[in-house]
């Protein structure tokens, strides 16, 4: 029987810590958080990097905080997500190799 997408997601979320599935779930979570931040328009607030307010409608500190959140999520997606996915691939390969031996 074909498992539902929901069921697959639940299984993924129950993945063992430091397993390939675990890395994939973490990568997916980071991507989802980044997409939310992006859609919410937080990219504009990264202007705090040049000392400029992202918007005059929010305080400088709050704007900088939003910009920092976006920056952290962006770096996570560009740096961490590929590392997590590569690590998941390496681990899966290692487990496959061990199972064969």
């Amino acid at each position, binding site marked *: 029987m074909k498992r539902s997408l929901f069921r697959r997601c639940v299984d993924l979320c129950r993945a*063992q*810590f*430091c*397993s390939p599935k*675990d*890395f994939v779930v973490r990568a997916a979570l980071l991507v989802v958080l980044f997409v939310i931040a992006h859609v919410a328009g937080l*990219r*504009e607030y*990264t*202007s*705090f*990097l*040049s*000392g*400029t*307010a*992202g*918007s*005059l409608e929010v305080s400088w500190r709050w704007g900088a905080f939003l910009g920092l959140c976006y920056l952290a999520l*962006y770096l996570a997606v*560009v*740096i961490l997500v*590929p*590392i*997590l*996915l*590569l*690590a*998941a691939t*390496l*681990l899966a390969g*290692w487990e496959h190799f061990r199972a064969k031996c």
Partner: protein
Amino acid sequence: MTAMGDDWMNALLKRVCIGVVALFAAAAIWLPCVHLVFTGSPANFHRPEGLSPKARQLAARHLALWTEPDLKRGELDRMRASNAEWDSMGRSFLVWSLANMGLREPASKAAYLKVIDQIIDETVRLEAQEGIYFFLMPYAKAQPYVTQPARSLFVDGEIALMLACRRVLEEKPEYQRALAERVRLIVGRLERSRLFAVESYPDECWTFDHAVAHAAIRLADYLDGTDHSALLRQWVSIAKEKLLHRQSSLLVSSFNLDGAPLDGPEGSTIWMVAHCLQLLDEDFARDQYERARRELGRTLCGFSFAREWPASWRSPMDIDSGPVIPVLGASAGASGMAFIGAAAFHDDSFLRSLAASLEFAAFPSCQDGRLKYCASNQVGDAALLYATVLGPIWEKVKTPRKL
């Protein structure tokens, strides 16, 4: 129970160890490759002739700012909330850019001239209506200017260079008089000072502003057949003698009327200064660029950036440096201005890796062919635009004019 717990713990530890090794291996593969995702050809950014794709996209956004009042007001208000100087600098970099673009793309000259004149007229009107303080930071009012009546070389120099660049692109009689008057004022003040030091703020002189003002004088000489070459040579000679930082031999960024340094060398200053020096003393300009490249330019994993200060000089962060990234010392302001240096001195490898950093960390946003960098602001983007198109005006002025 204890044996089961030990087994579980051993299995977990083993899994974590293998997981960590996999993460390190993945990082070792990915980190050296990240820059490849963001690295393009330097020709995407700056090319000897015509307009690069980046120049076209950045220009489209800036031209829209000057044709859509709401967009412009929002952008300028955000900048002025941090620094009123940026309003003036944003205008200047855009006019200097458009003048170069007009020479690169004669078919669009009329459209560029229209915006150039709009910017110049509005800037001069604002200066006349609101006074010099409109384009200065509030501390300009903290004490009176030593040289009276109060004038700022920052404002005079930038407006003079705007007028001069416009006239190099195409002559306009009203601007001929305006430039001659502005140059007369600047030269008068330079000659009144033993050290050729003119205030931008009360008893505060900036090398950036002097370099821009001297470039404007050089352009005025080219346009009007005047000759200030002795004054220009003298200023360069005094700068070499009095304004070089002892440890790095880079020009300091600010000094008082007695020539005593107030700040050491700064990345937000030196790259533009080196570019302006190309009109005054090519060898000194090249020397300053190469020193700045060595002292301030850094490349890490294929990404380049510029530090605000050399290792031999430390200063607190300020509005020019912007936030400085700890350990690396990377500054958005210095890195943005480094594009001007790299483009002016045809340093393609530095330009390519700076552009990779820009695409990686400045958050480009391109809509309808209009590009802006979210981490930047209008003046930052205008400086980048200038870096993409600079060259033709300087080349034209360096070529002897046929009378």
